């Protein structure tokens, strides 16, 4: 089921164009990987989908982004609601400097998704179980989240996004600061989340893109060079530049 549709999206930072007419769909059936050299516009594209670019005053977006049948850039669209429905996980784990429980409970709390403390506890537990973190942190829900390991922190950030039951989850290089064991756990987690959420993930790791995604989009210099089934892109890319990048000859 297609949740997020981007059509002809271009982004400008002042006079500089960062993204040139990109069209991509995110659906619950596929995990979509965004690959490409640094500065190619992957992260910029991700941030246009939940309007995180609004925080940059010089950024300007043209084209259309649809969340189901709602125009993300329509004046009526409430960004607070949008960002609750399109969750995001960042490159560096960024838990709030508060307790583990407060981190996960924060979203449901501000949106009023739980009616009682007991209900909130249940929401927190469910989110933590889904990220496989529950057994590791159940005894220290009150402990500061900054005391967890890097991998645990990143899974906590994912749990924080899941706690408000978004429709789409965007991940911006979620494993780039993690060791291989923690990375493997996040990848398993992404697998388990497919079907329920539409997932887009930016990665610099080709193996990771091949492992976790069913669709891959290759960006270069702000353009979407190639977009299709992951297996096709990795075994038989249509474009020369894609082949060069995937095989490590370039970028």
């Amino acid at each position, binding site marked *: 089921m297609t949740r997020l549709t981007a059509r002809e999206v271009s982004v400008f930072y002042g006079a500089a164009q960062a993204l040139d007419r990109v069209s991509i769909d995110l659906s619950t059936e596929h995990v979509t990987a965004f690959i490409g050299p640094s500065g190619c516009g992957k992260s910029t594209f991700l941030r246009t989908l*939940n309007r*995180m670019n609004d*925080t940059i*005053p010089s950024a300007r977006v043209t084209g259309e982004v649809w969340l189901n049948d709602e125009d993300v850039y329509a004046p009526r669209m409430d960004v*607070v*609601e*949008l*960002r*609750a429905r399109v*969750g*995001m*996980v*960042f490159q*560096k784990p*960024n*838990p*709030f*400097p508060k307790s583990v429980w407060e981190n996960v409970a*924060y*979203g449901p709390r*501000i*949106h009023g998704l739980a009616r009682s403390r007991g209900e909130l506890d249940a929401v927190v537990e469910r989110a933590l179980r889904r990220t496989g973190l529950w057994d590791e942190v159940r005894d220290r829900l009150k402990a*500061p989240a*900054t005391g967890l390991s890097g991998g645990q922190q990143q899974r906590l*950030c994912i749990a*924080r*996004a899941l706690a*408000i039951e978004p429709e789409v989850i965007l991940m911006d290089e979620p494993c780039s600061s993690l060791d291989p064991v923690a990375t493997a756990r996040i990848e398993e987690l992404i697998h388990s989340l497919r079907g329920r959420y539409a997932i887009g993930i930016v990665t610099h790791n080709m193996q990771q893109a091949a492992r976790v995604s069913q669709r891959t989009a290759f960006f270069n210099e702000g353009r979407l060079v190639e977009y299709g089934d992951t297996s096709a892109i990795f075994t038989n890319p249509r474009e020369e530049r894609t082949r060069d990048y995937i095989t490590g000859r370039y970028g």
Partner: protein
Amino acid sequence: MTDRATPSLPTDWRAPGLRHRLRRRHAAERRFRRLGAGAVLFAAGFLAFLLLTMVGQGLGAFTRTVLVLPIDTARPITEAGVDAAAVRAFGADGPLLMADQAWRVARERAAVGRATVRVPASDAVDAALAGQAAPAANARAAALRARGALRTEFAWSFLRGADATDPVRAGLWGAAKGSLLTMAVVFAFAFPIGLFAALWLEEFAGRNPWADLVEVSINNLAAVPSIIFGLLGLALFLGTLGLPRSAPLVGGLTLALMTMPVIVIAGRGAIRAVPPSVRDAALAVGASRAQVVFHHVLPLAMPGILTGTIIGMARALGETAPLLLIGMRAFIAAPPGGLTDPATVLPVQIFLWSDEVSHGFVEKTSAAIMMLLLVLLVVNGGAVWLRGRLEARR
């Protein structure tokens, strides 16, 4: 030529040129360290000199000489009665041993059933005890002390009393209370206004000419000499608004004008130091801008904001010039009862006492300086403690 210029591999660290260079680098480092240590010693020396002088001169203000006067406490105590008692106990010049208005002290302190009352001794007695009067007077004072008629006690009146024309009765509490009330006004006005100005500038203003203008104005305001704020306070609060002269309310408002830019600048620094990743995290779960600020940015910036506030307030606590202009230099013989009562503050009291000719005020001045420094030390220590506590909570 080219061969010689190319260094031999590996580098020969025993070569005289390199050795010499290394020695010079070490020497330069030692020189630099000595210079730094010297500067610190020099500054510490001045501080020690200041403290020693203050303590040496001011310690006397915390004690006072009292005359133990036998008196019939069952009868109403009058000026004439006290004088008569002094004549009976110490001879014809007995009344001269007591400070001015000592009979009032006797009336306050006299307890039924006690045969004596302690009254403050006069300046002349103090001088005689110190051996600075005529030889006969010196001997008499020494004899009275040996007899137990003259004693030294802790001068609670210095901490409890208000200003007085007689140094023996002059106290610091009036000025201290004035300072307290003034600081309360400074905090009540400067902290919220400064905090919200800093928040608006950092979080909501964005980049526009208006915000730039406000920013430049605030930075300039922080550099304006304090006397100018006094003139502003005089014109605005006394002239235009017609608030009462010499009142802690007006003093506090004037100092709040001066403190606010300091709080804004410190607050902006603290807010800017909050990592953007925390803001991103909150925005990404759908927090509104206000929720990001109040749930995440403000708690993290609070230690820095509070430190800036306390430093700004400590500066205001030591400020004299602007308060002179709004009339807080008047002689106030009673501690202020409220924000609109005439009052003075600690530094102004020091200024006023330092201007007095009477010998007794010299030690009062030094003692008042000691108390002011103590208060500032406590305030700044409190800032450090608070900062540590708030940061440990993260």
